[in-house]
């Protein structure tokens, strides 16, 4: 995407030409997918889920990913995070060609460079909020993991809930912990899979504010999977996935 002048929520979103074409990778791309195909299942049950996906997401860009159930949103997210290997095509994330990494390298890469926020929070029930946030830092070998985790929890307003277990926290609080956990290692990219899907509207809004604040303040690239078109509209760019194909470019301004 050119020289990246269009990034940021304040960018000129109505200007299609300021967005790079899918075939124009550049040094400022956070995520670059080229010719990605993926089928899952075996034999007769095999389904071609992702078809010829070409996609570039710029550094610091916020992208909303919309699409009906079964369109392949989650699968695309998994390909971006190295959790699923495509049958063909290349995946370059934060400058690293994921195809070259073996499973363990991918895990370490995820720990350092990608933060994931799940719809169902997925906090580890046997750990306190503080420990949950410290987990990726600890896996990455950070010596000050707990100090940094505490800082991250304060940043999402949970300074008073450090030593609570997930079961002792409300859904919104749990998702805030998950958000702090995703942001703690200062990843280049944050992917969020329907982060408000399990929350009521008010709580969901708070989470979204925090999510965008992190993106803004840290310059993190954000990929947000959602059903909510209004929410997607807050992103710099919106991608639509239909039956494994990307209808791109589509800006919410063009709706």
């Amino acid at each position, binding site marked *: 995407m050119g020289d990246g002048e269009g990034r940021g929520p304040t960018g000129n979103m109505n200007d299609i030409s300021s967005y790079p074409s899918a075939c124009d*990778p550049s040094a400022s791309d956070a995520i670059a997918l080229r010719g990605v195909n993926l089928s899952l299942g075996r034999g007769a049950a095999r389904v071609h889920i992702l078809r010829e996906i070409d996609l570039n997401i710029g550094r610091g860009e916020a992208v909303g990913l919309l699409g009906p159930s079964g369109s392949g949103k989650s699968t695309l997210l998994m390909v971006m995070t190295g*959790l699923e290997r495509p049958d063909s095509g290349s995946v370059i994330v934060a400058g690293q060609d994921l195809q070259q*990494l073996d499973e*363990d*390298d991918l*895990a*370490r890469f995820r720990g350092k460079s990608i933060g994931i926020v799940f719809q169902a929070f*997925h906090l580890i029930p046997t750990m306190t909020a503080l420990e949950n946030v410290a987990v990726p830092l600890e*896996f990455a070998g950070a010596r000050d993991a707990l100090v940094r985790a505490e800082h991250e929890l304060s940043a999402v307003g949970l300074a008073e809930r450090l030593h609570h277990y997930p079961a002792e926290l409300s859904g919104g609080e749990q998702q805030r912990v998950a958000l702090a*956990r995703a942001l703690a290692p200062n990843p280049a990219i944050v992917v969020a899979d329907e982060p408000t899907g399990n929350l009521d509207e008010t709580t969901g809004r708070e989470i979204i504010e925090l999510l965008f604040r992190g993106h803004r303040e840290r310059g993190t690239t954000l990929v947000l999977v959602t059903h909510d078109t209004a929410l997607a509209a807050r992103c710099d760019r919106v991608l639509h996935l239909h039956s494994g194909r990307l209808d791109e470019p589509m800006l919410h301004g063009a709706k």
Partner: protein
Amino acid sequence: MTVVDTRAALRRHPPAGQMARLALRFAWRELRGGLRGFGVFIACIALGVLAIAGVGSVAASLADGIASAGQVILGGDLAFSLIQREASDSERAFLDAHGTVSVAATTRAMARTPPPFPPAQAGEGMEGATLVEIKAVDNAYPLFGSLVTDPDMPLAAVFARNNDAFGAAVDPTLLTRLDLKTGDRITIGNVAIELRAALTSEPDKLAGGIGLGPRVLISEAALRASGLIQPGSLVRWQYRLRLPDADSGDRAVTSIEKQAQAAFPDAGWEVRTRTKASPQLERNVERFSQFLTLVALTTLLVGGVGVANAVAAHLAGKRDAIATMKALGATGGGIFAVYCAQIALVALFAAVLGAGLGAALPYVIAAAFGAIIPLPVAPSLHLGVLTLSIVYGLLTALAFALWPLGRAHDISVSMLFRDQVAAERRWPRRRYVIATASIVIILAALAIETTYDHRIAAIFVVSAAVVFGVLRLVAMLTMWIARRLPRQRSTVVRLAVANIYRPGALTPTVVLSLGLGLALLVTVIEIDGNLHREFTAALPEKAPSFFFLDIPSADADRFDALVRVHAPASSLERVPMLRGRIVAANGIKADDLKPAAGSRWVLRGDRGITYASVVPAGSRIVAGQWWGANYSGEPLVSLENRTAADLNLKIGDSITVNVLGRNVTARIANLRIVDWENLGINFVLVFSPGTFSGAPHSDIATLTFADGGTTQEETALIKALADAFPTVTAVRVKDALDALDNILTNLVLALRGASSITLIAAALVLGGALAAGQRFRIYDAVVLKTYGATRARLLTAYALEYLLIGLVTVLFGVAMGSLAADLIVTRVMEFPFVWVAGQAAGAALAALLVTVVLGLAGTFTALGRKPAEVLRNL
């Protein structure tokens, strides 16, 4: 876009120490909340470790007790033992110079009640004459410990002479056997003995080994007057030495032992010191405890199935957390490390718990039974034993946990994104398979290495592995068959059959754990039954009725004649008998010979030896030539074949034996195979005639009634012989075998007790598996009830399921156990195997009952649930 390869940076692994600390930290976080879900795991490991630690601790405490009571058991700081001869004047002078000496002479003899004999009671043989174990002591007895009699009286009063009668204290069983009371008289040899008191406690009893008759304690003077001491008669003379208190350190003891050997190299005496008062007893305790340890190891093995189940269930519950950690940067290896650390911590807790309880066992035994068991138990903590048991527990837990732990490596993160069940790998990655195999090998090596008899341990390990493998196959096959059975019309049968093969079925768990426990129990039961049969039923058919000891050589013909008169239909075999010790072979001292375990006994203490001009009955020459009937050349010896192999001796080699204080060297002329089971007169060493010319000796004889003999015949013969030959000892084979059988029964009882613990472990494992499957059962029950199934039908279906699984288990458990017993009996013990049905069937029935009852008890709650409440919460 610039593509940078950050692989090098990503592969910079954290140092191993940091990784281990991280794993432990995460493991600890998960365990903080308690050990919920690990109940069966902990119980299984703790039970197995408890058994191993308990057996080891009790055995070690017993060994300590024997060692610390060494002076009392031995009767002195040192004991010099001679057979068939007394110490020479110079030997005695040597002993007297070093401290206080007490003499104890032991022999076997017939005790007769003076005529008229008490009326013979029908069915009770031997009235009027019975075998007793004589112990004749001097006034210095006992040097250590104290003698307790009932009524309590000083030794001098017990032994005091009353006209022509000597006094004695006797084992109370003699009083009952001969229907006597204190004050009555018996005759031993040629003297009258007045029974002054009953023996309550004889301090040095343990060193004597197994007695075939009740003890009669008399004075040395009485023994000398009895006429039992003849040249060559089997009297053991023990000279116990008490060192002066000022100079009684271990160094003084060792120094005197060395001096004695140096001063009298040919004395042929067996010297024992207080530190090794009863090596035989210590060895027996050690050997027996090792058998028990192998049985206890089986408990761990059975429990291991529970461990595998518990770990798999635990990890199944952690799938989300594991996937999340992987999403946050944990590698598969890191996940394995975290959960392996966690399982290791739990296993350590369980093992330490078990070891702690095991360590308490000797204290409990000493406190509860100290007064009634005849062995000295000195309870103390034995760290070596406890550590070994903990190591066993940890290794077993890991051996069974590594497999499911390895599979956690490959739990996929994608399950967090989409609601689909990814196909599970059945096999973990190769490294985990190799690690599991390595731990199993270490476990096997440890079991073999720490056992006295490596061969027995190796047989155990191989059998356990084979039984385990076969039962695993049986479980798989059962499930395979159940899946392919034609569809049943009856819903009840269909449900039962489906439950046998569905994922998470009880089949593998029950078949493995219960099958293994049952196989062990049946093995022990079958071996027990066969030993019992061999001792009490099979052997006596071909065995002689009597052994006669101490027949004076000069009177032998008169003895033969008398037997022919009183038992005309019997056959008598009589051979000369000397006692001797092997002191060297090919010039190498016996202490330096390293025989295989099976033949070590040959070198221990003195053995019966004989000479013969013809091949002894019951023997067959397998190598070399027998000397001619009229041979009179250099001393030759015929050696039993297996002993020769174990001692690594061949024809032409030399053996030196010490007989009556004289060393005799003979060349091995031939090797024999001996049929030990016929209980005839069998000797490892048979010398050529003339080897011991001039050495005084007596004969021993066996007498076999052609038709087995009746009690009346036996009694009549014994009375006649006892009158005519008061110094000849008659050992009734049936009594001796009964005594052995009694001891055996007690030992096997302990083995059986230990084996039963495996069934407890199996029940635990079954309970755990039932609890794990409870959710499925409740769901099934509720759904089926919704569709109209009655509780009775469901109950029948479950009962049928447990019955079918139980039947398969019992069938193969009994089969494997019987096969193992067959192999052990025919290959190791070397006598024919006969399948004993009764008790094996009992054990099988018990196992079946456990499966069905425990299963139904576990399922009963599922039946009681109301559909609505469950469906609401689905």
